[in-house]
């Protein structure tokens, strides 16, 4: 899969991310030059042996030993310095490129429209931002350097060999293509096997997950033995595949070392003859032996690096896929000029927002949907109106809200805010004037203060406390120990659902929005908190245009307008009394919910 997907990318897909590499071209040049220098040093070391053998040992003199040692130390220090600086630079380029890729993808995500988030799950997007970027950065830095190091090493080794003894050098050169073919053969096998091992591993993790989350069912059905048997089939499959994979990788390393030994044998055979005939000095023979042993592994590293570069194309493609995704909702050039974009607002040009909302002949279809969910829909909502939207779970109650917030744009027709088409002003302008409370309250890790300031960045502690008081959440914050500095935990995990809900209300109040969107919670909370939340909602919606995706009866009853939705379509609209009198869908929905709520009330 990996290979077929990426065949069409040129130059391993590197041009596709060239813009992220360009700022580092100077460091990259230095790092490549130093890498080559390091390889030169590696090539030189055996030559010291040659000198020692040919000069000291054969001639039996130590006359130049001081010079010899000084040069040796000089080369050694030069290499150590080159290695340190180049590996520092590789690390730096790797991390800097990784950071830039992360920033680019994260920032692009901030501008993408909701249809992107609805068609891609969080885990998938998260992996694009966090792991693909890392893999790309690591591969293009370290693997490219692997190629530099090893290719230059092989080139220098052969340059020296050819300079010293052409005949023997050509013999060894003959072995390189054989080694390369061998390595490629094994590499192909191993890639497939390793992928298989990963897949079975994922299956086994899934098995554990099923065994634990399904424990109650497994026991009540008494199928423990059967599940165990199936699990053991998976683990035994895993064992056989893993051993099979090791078999190939062990053969692989064995044949690479064997190739090196064969090279050594060739040197001993051909070179030995020449040495005996005094056609070759003993030091030269030793140089050839060192090179013969050391030249096979670089071939392996080069091929492994190339294969890693091939693999990383998948990651590059996914990254590009994210960067190339376009938002369905884009502000026009003129709008951006006047109002600024998401990152550079021009607040001086922003008008106030009153809260009149109008749907004018709106038809709408979700970008990934087939059917129109709204057709020629007209509705005027004067500011200050409380709208409740009711319907079964999954009936598509959010559609109107999505349009008002301009998370989506109408397929036909217009949504008007204060009498002007939403598209005439920037998204940020609108969003800064809208308060949004989610069904599952979403808090960010950090302090209470940080979370509430999400609603108003420059809110003072007094304002924050006042907002908390309005929703009766000040006690809960007190209890946390450090007041506004208290940590709410990852995703607000240190708080109960009810407390999270109250904090998210306070956050919305701080924003002092003209339009308020409320997606009520369905989960049951204890009666005390329930009461507090009810009261808080009452406080919040007073005097604002509000859209409430409603699950609670009391809030629905008091609404100025109730919209009932079935299968994404609006079936009824009106005040509570009118709809009850009609004895149709709303009546049935309300009666059933009332029954359930009343039954629950009686029983607990």
């Amino acid at each position, binding site marked *: 899969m990996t290979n077929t997907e990426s065949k069409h990318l040129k130059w391993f897909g590197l041009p596709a991310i060239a813009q992220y590499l360009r700022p580092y071209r100077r460091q990259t040049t230095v790092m490549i030059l130093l890498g080559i220098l390091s390889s030169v040093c590696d090539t030189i070391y055996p030559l010291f042996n040659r000198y020692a053998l040919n000069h000291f040992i054969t001639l039996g003199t130590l006359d130049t030993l001081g010079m010899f040692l000084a040069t040796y130390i000089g080369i050694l220090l030069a290499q150590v310095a080159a290695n340190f600086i180049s590996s520092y630079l590789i690390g730096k380029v790797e991390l800097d490129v990784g950071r830039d890729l992360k920033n680019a993808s994260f920032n692009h995500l901030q501008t993408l429209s909701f249809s992107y988030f609805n068609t891609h799950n969080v885990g998938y997007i998260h992996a694009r931002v966090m792991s693909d970027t890392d893999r790309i950065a690591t591969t293009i830095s370290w693997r490219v350097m692997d190629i530099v190091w090893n290719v230059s090493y092989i080139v220098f080794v052969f340059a020296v060999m050819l300079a010293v003894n052409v005949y023997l050098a050509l013999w060894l050169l003959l072995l390189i293509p054989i080694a390369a073919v061998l390595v490629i053969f094994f590499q192909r096998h191993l890639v497939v096997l390793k992928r298989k091992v990963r897949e079975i591993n994922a299956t086994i993790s899934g098995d554990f997950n099923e065994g634990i989350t399904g424990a*109650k069912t497994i026991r009540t059905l008494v199928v423990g033995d059967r599940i165990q048997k199936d699990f053991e089939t998976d683990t035994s499959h895993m064992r056989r595949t893993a051993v099979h994979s090791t078999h190939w990788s062990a053969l692989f390393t064995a044949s690479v070392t064997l190739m090196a030994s064969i090279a050594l044998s060739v040197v001993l055979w051909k070179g030995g003859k020449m040495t005996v005939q005094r056609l070759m000095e003993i030091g030269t023979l030793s140089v050839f032996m060192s090179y013969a042993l050391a030249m096979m592994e670089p071939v392996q590293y080069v091929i492994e690096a190339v294969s890693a570069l091939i693999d990383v194309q998948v990651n590059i493609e996914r990254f590009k896929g994210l960067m190339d995704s376009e938002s369905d909702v884009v502000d026009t050039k003129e709008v951006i000029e006047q109002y600024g974009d*998401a990152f550079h607002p021009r607040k001086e040009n922003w008008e106030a927002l009153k809260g009149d909302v109008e749907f004018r002949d709106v038809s709408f279809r979700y970008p990934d949907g087939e059917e129109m969910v709204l057709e020629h829909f007209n509705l005027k909502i004067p500011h200050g109106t409380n709208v409740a939207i009711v319907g079964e779970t999954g009936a598509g109650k959010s559609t109107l809200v999505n349009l008002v917030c301009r998370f989506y744009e109408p397929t036909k027709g217009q949504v008007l805010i204060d009498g002007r088409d939403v598209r005439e002003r920037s998204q940020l302008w609108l969003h800064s004037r809208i308060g949004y409370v989610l069904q599952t309250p979403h808090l960010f890790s950090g302090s209470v203060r940080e979370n509430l300031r999400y609603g108003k960045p420059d809110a003072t502690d007094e304002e924050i406390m006042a907002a908390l008081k309005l929703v009766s959440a000040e006690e809960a914050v007190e209890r946390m120990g450090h007041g506004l500095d208290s940590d709410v935990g990852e995703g607000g995990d240190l708080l109960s659902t009810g407390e999270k809900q109250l904090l998210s209300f306070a956050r919305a109040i701080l924003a002092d929005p003209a339009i308020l969107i409320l997606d009520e919670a369905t989960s049951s909370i204890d009666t005390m908190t329930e009461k507090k939340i009810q009261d808080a909602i009452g406080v919040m919606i007073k005097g604002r245009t509000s859209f409430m995706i409603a699950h609670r009866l009391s809030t629905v009853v008091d609404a100025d307008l109730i919209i009932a939705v079935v299968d994404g379509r609006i079936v009824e609209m009106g005040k509570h009394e009118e709809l009850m009198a009609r004895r149709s869908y709303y009546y049935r929905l309300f009666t059933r919910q009332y029954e359930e709520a009343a*039954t629950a009330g009686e029983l607990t």
Partner: protein
Amino acid sequence: MRNKRRDLIVYFLKGSVRFFALSIGFAMLASFFDLLSPRVVGWAVDSFLAGDDRAVRSALTVAAVAGAGAIFRYLYRLFNSMGAEKLVERMRNRLFEHIERLKFSWYSENQTGDIIQRCTSDVETVKSFLSDQLTSVFRIVIMILIAMGFMISINWKLAIVAAVFIPAIFLYSLFFHGRIGSTFQEADEEEGTLSTITQENLTGVRVVRAFGRERYERRRFEHQNDIYTAAYLKLSILISAFWSMGDFFAGAQVMAVVAVGAYLAVKGQITAGDYIAFISYNSMLSWPVRSLGRVISDMSKAGVSVDRIGYIMNSKEEEDPDRAIRPAMDRDIAFSHVSFRYGPDMPKILDDVSFTIPAGKTVGILGGTGSGKSTLMYLLDRLYDIGEGSGSITIGGVDIRDIPRDYLRDHIGMVLQEPFLFSRSLSENIGIAADDAGQPAIERAAGIASLSETVRHFRHGYDTMVGERGMTLSGGQKQRTAIAQMVIRDTPIMIFDDSLSAVDAETDARIRVELNRCMGNATIVLISHRITTLMAADEIVVLNHGRVTETGTHEELLKKQGLYARICGIQGIAAETKKGGDSK
């Protein structure tokens, strides 16, 4: 603690020890042959210098020695892998088996993610400790010893020059890996924070957009990204420094050996061949010594993993009594003065509950959230046991605590409110608890559960994959699958724990009619807060706050004008008529 760890390792190693023993034997042979080669080369060089033409013979000997080395190295790795994989297989199988037998309360006390982590990455850590790190240390030490042997046999003075560097390089590497470990942990934490910011931004995308805080999010992310990058850069510099310094030490050692070796050769104490052989030995040792430091500093992590696995293996399993009785199960079920709480500090869920479910009859239980109605059924199925002196449940007069769990559960069918489906096909899910169920039996069960019509609309019909890795079914579809799953088992006792809550009233009624027709002799318990589900039962028990407040038939309870009658009123059910409350 240490003995416990050792016992656990010994227990898991059963069956893989012989592979490891063989692999270590092969490792020693491989090392020996690998190290023989320089000696052969040395001898060959001396013979060349003496003018003795043994080139072809030396070449063949070197090739043969290297071939032997390669074969043994291959065998060492193969057997090592066989041992390692056998070990992992056994660890996973035993862990899985143990987890399936643990007391049910254990699952609520432990987090799924954490348990899976223990069963996967901790198992990998222990495996690599035993198969990789431990054998590496052994192999490297053997290699150093053999190499030193060869080196001393060539010239002991030169051997000392080479040897003094070994402990220095080793200690240096050990020290550095300790440092790297703590820096890595810091960097890892920063990565965790960055990952959380991304995660929260993505899950909270609506909040970010609705409050127009893209700019803030961008700053927050870029700021943490800088911190994260700096932390890894620190690590990267440390590693670069370590490698460069290591290179320097190793280079200095080689240089010392080259210089002293040349001096000794000039003085005539060693031959040129000895010199070449010695240089080879010396360079062959430099890598293993450096990696020894890394291996040893990594080994300390394994102890923690063993303990984490030990935590699971030492948790208590469900136990059955010795005096096991296997009574007939189509008898009256009697709850007598049952009280229960989930833990010593937890509130009382059931308080002195007594009632009887007559054999072959249908009993309905009406109760709200938290009334303890599900707990009653968990106690009946012995997912939890009633404490001593807190009452008893009997079937045909036999206390269920005297009945083996598997026997008991084999005879009780239970449909849970939120059923769990396995990652298998729909028909496998339905037939999972009935080994010999053929397709006709599966389809019949699906028919009784009103599932046939739904399945017809699936493109792959009964072969549709469901569960975590398959198609997502709606709550009602899941409940009906679970009902089919139970129907096929044909148990004498059947429990429906609020298991029709997600299907509409019509389907609910149709399923109940079908069940009555096909399962005439079974004892049935229906738990619900929907009166229409319960009203036809032979007897209805009203459970409120863990106590039985009313019992009787629908008509009797209506006459009592109590809680039941009030709820009937709320749900719009009068004494004489029954009206479908909803249609959608």
